[in-house]
């Protein structure tokens, strides 16, 4: 089944989580954090390649950082992002049970699909 990709992220890829900022951050802090991450990604620093979100570590790239910066510069979109930023990050909630989580790498692990970097 097809579902529309989420072009205005809610919980997934929330701009505050991507830029590792709190909902009360200033515009200057947004620019500083975004530019720092772009520079780190530009030199392929591992620390910048993932960020910690409510669902655990997620990949981060330059495009996502730029889109997050754009979202937080827009007052309307920032308000919406603040709404979602109220969800605590992964490990903080004891009620999250990862037991039933999927195994996205199953086909690669069983040798049916070539994994990257093999």
């Amino acid at each position, binding site marked *: 089944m*097809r*579902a529309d990709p989420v072009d205005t992220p809610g*919980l997934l890829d929330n701009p505050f989580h991507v830029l590792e900022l709190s909902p009360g951050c200033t515009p200057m802090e947004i620019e500083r954090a975004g530019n720092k991450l772009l520079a780190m990604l530009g030199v392929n620093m591992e620390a910048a390649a993932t960020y910690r979100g409510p*669902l655990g570590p997620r990949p981060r790239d330059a495009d996502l950082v730029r889109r997050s910066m754009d979202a937080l510069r827009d007052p309307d979109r920032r308000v919406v992002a603040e709404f979602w930023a109220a969800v605590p990050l992964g490990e903080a909630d004891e009620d999250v049970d990862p037991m039933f989580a999927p195994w996205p790498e199953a086909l690669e692990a069983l040798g049916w699909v070539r994994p990257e970097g093999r």
Partner: protein
Amino acid sequence: MNPVPLIFAVMALVRLGVWAVRLVSGEDAPTQGTRRAASPPDSVYNAWIAALIVLSALVVLLTAGLGVLVVIPVWVLAVEPWWWARLVAVPRGWTRVAYASGRLSSWVWRHDRRGGAAFASALASVRGDEDGDAWIEAPPDAVSVTAGMVTGAALLAGRRGDVAGATALLRMSTWFDARPEPERAVVAEWLAADAARRGAWEEVVALTEDRTDGSVGLAFLHAVAARILETEDAPDLLELERRWHALQQGPLASLQPDHPVRRSAVALADRARAALHRVHRTPARPPDDPMQAALLAHRRALMSTSALGEALRCWEVVEDRLPPRVREQVVAELSVRAAACRPPPPAIGHLGFEVRDRLVQRGLEDLALQARALQERTKAKHGLDPMAEVREAASIAEQVHALVGPLDATERDPATEILVRSIFRTVYSPVTDWAADLYNRRRQPYLFRALTWWLLELARAAGDGEATALYLRNLGVSRGWSHGTDRRVDEA
């Protein structure tokens, strides 16, 4: 008395006997209508056996009988060359040897040697880490597409990264008749892995239940899924470790210890071990604030499809407090998660209705467009090459599967029941006409039968007795000349 001549005589007699039985029973080569297709592999195979007899006799004579120690194992493998493919060619990635071995297989692939060749070479290409086409012949129009060819094409598509296309083809292959066990095991493992990717652990258990000796992958997936779901036959720690060790010695062996894929497998094994000692806590008290409860439930739903219903219920409580933009994001994110469910989750509340409606409407539109295009093409007698026809069939079947789940499900919610009937009305005429064209004009009897089996299950699910009877008749008519089937053909 020298037993060697006796051994040779017995082997030759067995081979001739098998050949004679197959010749008389007419089950040797696929037939198409009343015509019996030419059977090149038989003459090649028999020439191969004859050459072996001569060479073996020479070896034994020249070595004064000691050569029988070499000749007998060679004979065992030569009579069923599939074992050369399975034990030697596939693990080493020798695609050409695998292809030839499959083509000469007279027992495992006796009904589908061309398919066996395609399957074996694709398997060798995948397991042997080779690139490029792996001697899969794009079957010309004169050749009937079979399950082995479909599975081989699917494996190569998966190797190239087209996982969705490969999954659709493999699911389509399950509708073909007379599939040998090696092909069934591979398909079961892939579909179980696909279910694991989506977190559908119940589906993993259903696919792997009686197949744990089929491969290390099947055994491991079953162990993990059974432990996570705490089924009755869930393995103990010792058995779990044994299957994990086998996986590490098998598919994972070529990966570096710090490779992300290997780490994910380690994490899954840890999860299964943790399930052994799982303490069932009483659920934490939900937050007093319904909005906070909805946000937490939303997060759980994004992690696991089993939590979708709870999230929809929580959002239903606070729906009138949501700004329109946030509401749109809730529906969009839950739709992305729900797209992995087979069938879509039931509609709970307005938001649930929107989530389901968004997925179902799009799916129905796509299906209707494809059915219309198929009808036009059939009327215009415009045929595609055989494997492209299979891909079309796989695409339609996969869309239906995504909308309503497995066709043989015994229980469906009322909305899905209505959806099944709507889908059947959409696809009945175009696909039935197309299947008939494939049989009558395109000489694709196996694909025709696979489509008819699929239509039969869909008709039964939709409760259409007239169509069910039609498809049963169609299967009976073509069954007279084709090889056997392991599907039930009794009336609904």
